[in-house]
C-alpha cells in the first residue's frame, strides 16, 4: 500500500525555521536523513521531495483562451507543502509509525518539533492520471 506523508506549514511556521541555529538544522536533517536511509534499507522507500519556499508559490488558472493567469497572494492561514515522503508499506499503522518518527525529529534545542504529518493513501485506481 502506497502512502504519502505530507509536511506542511503556514508562512509563519516557515519563518520560524529560518531562525533555527545551524546546529539545530543539521541535527534535524541528520535525523530525517537517517529515517530515509532506514526506509531505503527496509525496501519501503519510494520517493521524497522537498519544495522551495512558499514565497515562490504561484496559483495558476487557465483563461478561456488558454492563457495562464498567475497569482502569488495567499491567505495567511494557507498551509504550504514543505516536502513529502512516499512509502510502500504493509499496513496503515506502519505509515503512521513512520510519520510519528518524522514528527519526532529534533527542533531547536533538540526538542522534537512534533510537527503534524498528514498521511494519505494513494487512490486505488489513479484513473485520472494514467
Amino acid at each position: 500500500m502506497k502512502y504519502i506523508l505530507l509536511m506542511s506549514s503556514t508562512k509563519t511556521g516557515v519563518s520560524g525555521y529560518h531562525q533555527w541555529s545551524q546546529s539545530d538544522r543539521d541535527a534535524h536533517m541528520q535525523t530525517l536523513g537517517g529515517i530515509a536511509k532506514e526506509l531505503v534499507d527496509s525496501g519501503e522507500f519510494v520517493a521524497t521531495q522537498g519544495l522551495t519556499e512558499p514565497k515562490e508559490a504561484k496559483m495558476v488558472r487557465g483563461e478561456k483562451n488558454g492563457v495562464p493567469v498567475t497569482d502569488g497572494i495567499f491567505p495567511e492561514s494557507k498551509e504550504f507543502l514543505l516536502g513529502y515522503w512516499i512509502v510502500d508499506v504493509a499496513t496503515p499503522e506502519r505509515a503512521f509509525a513512520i510519520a510519528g518518527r518524522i514528527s519526532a525529529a529534533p527542533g531547536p534545542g533538540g526538542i522534537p518539533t512534533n510537527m503534524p504529518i498528514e498521511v494519505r493513501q494513494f487512490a486505488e485506481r489513479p484513473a485520472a492520471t494514467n
Partner: protein
Amino acid sequence: MKYILMMNGKKSDFEGYARWSKEDLQANVAFMRSFSKELKDSGVFVASEGLGWPNEAKLVRAGSKGEPITDGVFPESKEFLAGYWIVDVESPEQAYAIAARLSQAPGPEEKTENMPVEVRQVLSSHSDLGL
C-alpha cells in the same frame, strides 16, 4: 527545473465532485489521460499521483515516547491535496502554461470558475537527506 503542480480542494469540493454526472466524470478522466500522455510525449513528465479521499486522511504526531498519535479531525477550511503532477521544464512560464491547461479540465456545465492549480518549484537535490 522541476515543478510540482498541485490540485487542492476542501471536503465540500470533493463532495461536489462525487455528484458529477457519469458523462462529466468521463470527459474529465479522458482529458486527464490525454493530458498525461501529452506530457509524456513531450518529455516533461516526471511523476503524477492521485490521492485517496480526505475522509481517509490522518494527521500524525509523535507522542512523548515517539509513538504515533493519529487524528482524523480537520477544520472545514482545510485544503486537501487531490493529486499532483511533477514536470521537468525549461522555465517557470512553461510550468504555468501546463498548469493553465490543467486548470481548464472539463467539469459540469454549471461550473463557472476554472480550478486553481498551485505551482511550486521542487528542490533539485536530496543532498540534505543523504540520498
